[in-house]
C-alpha cells in the first residue's frame, strides 16, 4: 500500500454536508444498522469500507432514501442534509434524490440513446429552458464524466452499446447532469476491469471539486486511493471514522486493524 501518498495528502476541513445522528436501520426484525453517527463533508470523498454484509451499502441507501422502495425497511434517527432532516414527513424523496444523486454497482444505462440517458434527469426536473440549454447540460455532464470524446460522435446510439467502463461513466454523467449536491456511489467499480476502474477513480477525484462524494467499496486500496475520509463498518456498527490516512496507517480500533491487515473480511 502506498502509505507515502496517503500521508502527504493535504487535508482541509470543509462544511458538513450530511450529518447522521444515531441512525438505526431495521429490515423487518433484523437490526441492520446500529447507532451510526457520521459527518460527511462537502467537496470531500468519503469511503465506506467493511466486510460484506456489514451494512455499508444499506447505510449509503438511507442517505437518499432509496430504502423507501423496500417495504420492510425502517429507519430511525436523524440524517440532516444542510441541517434539514431528510426523514421529515414533509420531505419529498423525489426532491431529495435530485440533490443526492446515486451511481450503482452495476452500470445500468437506460435502453435509450446516450443523449437521452444524460438528458433524463434534467428533463424530469425541468432544469433547462431551450433545447440548446439541454444540449449544453448533456455536453458538460459527459465532459465531467470524462467520456465526451469517446461518445460525442454517437450521441444517438444506444447507451447499452457501450463497454462496461463507458457505461459506468455514462451513468455518472447521468447522475451529474441532475446537478446534485451529493453523489453516492455504491461499489461503482466492482463490475469493471482495472483500466476502466482507474478511469473512474480518476474521475471521482475530479468530481470532488464540486460535490460531496460518498463511495462504498469493498477494495481497501481503492478507498485509500480516492478518499479523504474513511468509515469502517462492521456487523452494522460504525467502528471507526476519520482521515483516510489515519485509518489506514494507525487505526485506533483492533477490528479495523484486523480488517486492514486481512485477518477479517
Amino acid at each position, binding site marked *: 500500500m502506498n502509505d507515502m501518498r496517503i500521508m502527504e495528502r493535504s487535508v482541509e476541513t470543509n462544511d458538513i454536508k450530511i450529518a447522521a445522528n444515531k441512525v438505526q436501520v431495521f429490515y423487518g426484525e433484523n437490526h441492520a444498522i446500529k447507532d451510526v453517527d457520521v459527518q460527511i463533508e462537502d467537496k470531500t470523498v468519503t469511503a465506506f469500507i467493511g466486510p460484506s454484509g456489514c451494512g455499508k451499502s444499506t447505510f449509503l441507501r438511507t442517505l437518499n432514501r432509496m430504502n423507501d422502495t423496500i417495504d420492510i425497511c425502517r429507519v430511525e434517527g436523524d440524517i440532516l*442534509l*444542510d441541517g*434539514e432532516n*431528510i426523514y*421529515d414527513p*414533509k*420531505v*419529498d424523496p*423525489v*426532491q*431529495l434524490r435530485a*440533490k443526492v444523486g446515486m451511481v450503482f454497482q452495476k452500470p445500468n444505462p437506460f435502453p435509450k440513446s446516450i443523449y437521452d440517458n444524460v438528458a433524463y434527469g434534467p428533463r*424530469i*426536473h*425541468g432544469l433547462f429552458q431551450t433545447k440548446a440549454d439541454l444540449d449544453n447540460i448533456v455536453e*458538460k455532464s459527459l*465532459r*465531467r464524466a470524462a467520456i465526451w470524446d469517446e461518445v460525442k460522435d454517437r450521441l444517438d446510439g444506444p447507451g447499452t452499446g457501450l463497454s462496461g467502463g463507458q457505461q459506468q461513466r455514462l451513468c455518472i454523467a447521468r447522475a451529474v447532469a441532475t*446537478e446534485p449536491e451529493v453523489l453516492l456511489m455504491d461499489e461503482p467499480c466492482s463490475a469493471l476491469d482495472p483500466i476502466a476502474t482507474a478511469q473512474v477513480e480518476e474521475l471521482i477525484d475530479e468530481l470532488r471539486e*464540486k460535490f460531496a462524494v460518498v463511495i462504498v467499496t469493498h477494495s481497501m486500496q481503492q478507498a485509500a486511493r480516492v478518499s479523504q475520509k474513511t468509515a469502517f463498518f462492521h456487523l452494522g456498527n460504525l467502528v471507526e471514522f476519520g482521515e483516510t490516512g489515519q485509518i489506514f496507517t494507525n487505526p485506533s480500533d483492533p477490528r479495523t486493524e484486523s480488517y486492514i491487515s486481512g485477518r477479517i473480511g
Partner: protein
Amino acid sequence: MTDFNSDMASKKSSLLVADARTQKRNKAEARFRAYGLAAVGVGLLFLVILLTTIISNGSSAFKQTFVTVEVFLDPAKIDKKGNRNIEDLKKATTFTYKPLIQQGLLDQVNAAGYNHPFEKHKAMGQLLSASAAGQVRQFVLDNPDRLGETVEFRLIAASRVDGYLKGRVTRESVARDKNISAEHFDLVDQMQADGLVEKVFNMAFITGADASEARPEQAGFGVSMAGSFFMMLVVLGVSLPIGVAASIYLEEFAPQNWFTDLIEVNISNLAAVPSIVFGILGLAVFIQFAHLPQSAPLVGGLVLSLMTLPTIIISTRAALKSVPPSIRDAALGIGASKMQSVFHHVLPLAMPGILTGTIIGLAQALGETAPLLLIGMVGFIATNMPDTLAEGILSPNSAMPAQIYEWAKRADPAWYERAWGGIIILLVFLITMNTLAVILRRRFERRW
C-alpha cells in the same frame, strides 16, 4: 471547462418545502396511479357485472312452475275397447288425454269459485305445457289399474305462465299473444294464492334432454352434460398419454436438431391457432376423410384433444423441467437406464404438475364451442341418456357449450333463461376443475 454550476445558486432550496414543479409532478404521479387503480377496478367490475348477469338471469332456470290438476282418467275415452290391454292403451295418443286434463283443470277452477271468463276447457290448455298430456299418458301406461279414478297430477305449466311467475312475461307483453291472455294471468294469480300453481326446484333441467322449439319449459341440460362428459373422456384418453409421451421425448431424449426445433415451433403455434380452424380440421379429416360418425362425442373429443395437446405438452414439459438433474444423475449413477430413470423417478415426481396442466387443459376444452359447431354437435339431437360407454361415445349428442349456443339462437326469450342456467352449470364445472387444479398444485408443490 466552464463553471458548471453557475446556474445552481437558485437551486439552494429547502427540502421541507415542495417546489411548484415537484407539486405538479406529484399530482401527475397520483393521476397515473389512479389510472392504474381504475383499470384494475374496471377489470374487476366487468367480472362482477358478468357474474351477476349470469346468476340473475340464470338462477330462475332451476325453478319451474307446476300446476296441480286433478284428472279423471276416463276409461270411456282412454280404453275404448274396455279390456285394459296395454297394447290397446298405447294406441290412445296424447290427443286423447289433452281434453281430459283440460276438463279436469276447468272443473277444479270452477269448483274453487275463481273468477274467470273461460267457458271452454280448451282455454285451460294454454296454462299447461304441451308435454303435460304425455306425462299423464305415461302414468296411465305405467298404472293401467288406476283407470277410472280421479288422480292428482303435478304438471308442467306453459312457458308463458312460468315466465309470468318469474316476471319475464307481463300482461302488457301478451296483449297480442295468441297463446295466452291477461285473463289467464288473473286466474293464475288466484290459483297461486291457493297453492295450485307453484314454483318448485326443477330437477328435470339438470337431468333432462333438450326439447323442441315450442316447449322451452320442458328442456333440460342433462343429456348435453353427458355428451360433454364422454367428450372429456376421449380428450383425457387421447391427449394425456400422447401429450405426456411427446413431452418426455422432447424434454428428456430429443437431440438438438432441426426436427426437434420443427416440433417445438409447431407446438407453440398450435397453441395459438384459432379454435374454429381445428373445427375445419375435424370436419375435413375426421368426418369427410375418415368417415367417423358425425355429431358423435368421439369426433368432438378428438378435435378437442388436438387443441388440448399443446396445453398439456407445455405444462408437462415445465413439470419435467422442474425436476432437478440430480435426481436423474442419482438414478443413472446406480446403473438405471435413461428410460428407467425417467419412468421410475422423473415422471412420478412431475406427476402433480402434469395433472394440474391436464385439468386446466380439460377445463379449456370443456368450454370450447366453435369447433363443435362445424362437426354438427349442435342442438336437438339426443333425447335420451346414453346407456353404454360405446353408445355415449359414438351416438350423436350435443355438448354443454353447444347446447347453450343452440338455446341462445332460438326466438322465444324463455330459451334465454335456459341458456343462462346452462352457463351456471358449465361454470360450476369449470370452477370445480380449476379449484381442483389449484389445490393439487398447492398440495404437491415441491420446492427444490
